[in-house]
């Protein structure tokens, strides 16, 4: 039993990290008032490019960097559409998802089903290997730690810095932000660009850090989970760590239980993150404070005339 818990906790960060990275990317977009429904496709493209770059001889770090850049590149038309031309964000995001999903399928055929050497575990905590329960949990690759640091840094930046305050203002009340001299569109472009990089990175981590192989459809709804995770975390990066650990932990638990021979309704258990998020949405609706967590202008187009 102890061994199983140790193994589960050891696997959990690997499941947590892509969800956390994608959720942080979405959180940045949404804090700037942009709802990015392209996430599932952008992750798929990041995963494909990461794998293709690894197969092409790039190191894991470079491969993930290229995956992140691919996420940014494919999101540029979306950014121009919704930020410059104020296109409705929901259909524009779905279009981005389709373009990126289609591109990953069309461009990635040569890279499918070919294993490669992925990201290695850091050797920093080797001495702790034998420690029960947490020993295995400390044996992770660098991206796990980087994602946690990024979440903490983003939380601090949003809460404490002038730039973070301005970004929150852009998503909350762009008219007031505009009046106080904040360049709304510049902040939105910056936030969605950084967010797309993170979402692409999340996808690249799935192939380069996780499975060390790319197959079409490997994102398998994780983008949508990340979207739910942002709501679950009430737009707070620190709470997103907790949510990603919870959702990732649930994901990691199912194969462990199966390996132990426990008969579990796998698919019914997998519904939990979604059901939990709906429950959180309902609870939030009853709490005035929680309701205010959602960026007030999320999904809407701002023009100066509205001020």
């Amino acid at each position, binding site marked *: 039993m102890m061994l199983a818990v140790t193994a589960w906790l050891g696997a959990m960060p690997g499941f947590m990290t892509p969800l956390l990275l994608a959720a942080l990317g979405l959180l940045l977009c949404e804090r700037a008032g942009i709802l990015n429904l392209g996430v599932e496709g952008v992750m798929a493209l990041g995963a494909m490019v990461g794998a293709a770059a690894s197969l092409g001889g790039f190191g894991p770090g470079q491969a993930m960097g290229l995956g992140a850049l691919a996420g940014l590149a494919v999101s540029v038309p979306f950014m121009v559409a919704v930020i410059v031309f*104020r296109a409705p964000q929901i259909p524009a995001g779905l279009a981005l998802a*389709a*373009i990126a*999903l289609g591109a990953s399928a*069309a461009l990635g055929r040569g890279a499918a089903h070919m294993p490669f050497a992925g990201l290695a575990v850091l050797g920093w905590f080797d001495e702790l290997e034998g420690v029960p329960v947490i020993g295995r949990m400390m044996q992770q690759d660098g991206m796990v730690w980087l994602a946690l640091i990024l979440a903490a840094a983003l939380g601090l930046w949003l809460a404490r810095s002038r730039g973070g305050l301005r970004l929150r203002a852009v998503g909350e009340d762009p008219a007031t932000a505009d009046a106080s001299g904040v360049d709304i569109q510049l902040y939105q472009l910056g936030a969605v660009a950084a967010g797309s990089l993170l979402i692409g990175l999340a996808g690249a981590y799935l192939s380069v850090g996780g499975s060390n192989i790319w197959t079409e459809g490997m994102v398998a709804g994780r983008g949508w989970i990340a*979207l739910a995770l942002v709501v679950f975390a009430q737009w707070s990066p620190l709470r997103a760590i907790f949510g990603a650990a919870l959702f990732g932990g649930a994901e990691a638990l199912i194969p462990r239980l199966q390996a132990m021979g426990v008969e579990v309704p796998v698919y019914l258990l997998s*519904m939990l993150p979604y059901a939990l998020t709906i429950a959180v949405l*309902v609870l939030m609706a009853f709490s005035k404070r929680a309701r205010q967590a959602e960026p007030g202008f999320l999904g809407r187009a701002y023009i100066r005339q509205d001020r």
Partner: protein
Amino acid sequence: MLETVTLERRQGAGAVRAALTYAGALALGLALSLAVLVAAGVPTGALFNELVVQVFLSPAGLARTVTMATPMMLGALAAALCLRLKFWNIGIEGQLWLGAICATAVALYDIGGPLRLPLMMVAAMAGGALWILPSALLKMWLGVSEVIVTLLMSNIAFLLLQHLLFGPFRDPTFNFPTSPVFGEAEKLARFGWGDVNGGLVLALVAVALAALALGRLRYGYAARFVGDNPKAALALGFPAGRVLLLSILAGGAMAGLAGGVIVAGTEYRLTQAVGLNMTFNGIVIAALARNAPGWIPLVALFIAGLYVAGASLKVFYGVSEGIVLIAQGIILLVLVTAQFVTTYRVRLARGVVA
């Protein structure tokens, strides 16, 4: 930076401007899509044959296109009926899966005797409506965003589908997770023209009813009011809540019926691949048809033609089917971006802008 020009909202665009914008966007989207196809390796000379002749002009090709378009018309209705009231149904696939599951359950458990087939279709509609109900109620009672809830419900529906296909519904004689094949009394009739089946009649009747209700009945008048300004509609004595709920449930029912039509009309069993991409297809078709039911059959044929052409391009030129998604994505993105021209007026700024 970008505010060297200022924008104003237009008080409604003129019909000419709207029509030109739409036509221009469609032409640009198509041109970009064709460019992607050529870049992917389809010879320019083959485009007309593959995209028009094989898909719309040859009898066998047209039959494939019409078959594919049938559930798409219902999926597009699911998007359009909700969108008319500014309700974004991002969970069409989920409602479709529930419809397919309910229709399959009626078939597998031999419910309904001689009324089996009609009952399957009714069950499909009920399943779809049931699956959209939580998002409708949460939106109406608590103001919870329907975008997230319909999306989440869709993911839950897919897991339910898998649970059933790997469990109670599974046909143990197959290696793949599918339900047993339906009996003859559980299949929609074919007309002897490819796989075109009774589902087409159901879809066209649904389109006609929706067009009638929106265009000729008091419901359509109320729906327009409630969609534009729910508070004013309520103040004017329209039953805003009832109109909203009815429209959303009708949308869910149409998605469910699409699932029923797929399992009883073409697949004859439940599989994991039923209705894939229908959320996106439905929204693209609804957007191209500007949420007008009357235009949906034509647009659905066009989008179905893309898929049929994509399947043949894959065989003959090794072009990935991902190309079809890219083309649809480009067309939708260009179309919604072009709304800028009809929504805003651009004024050059005179003074210095902060």
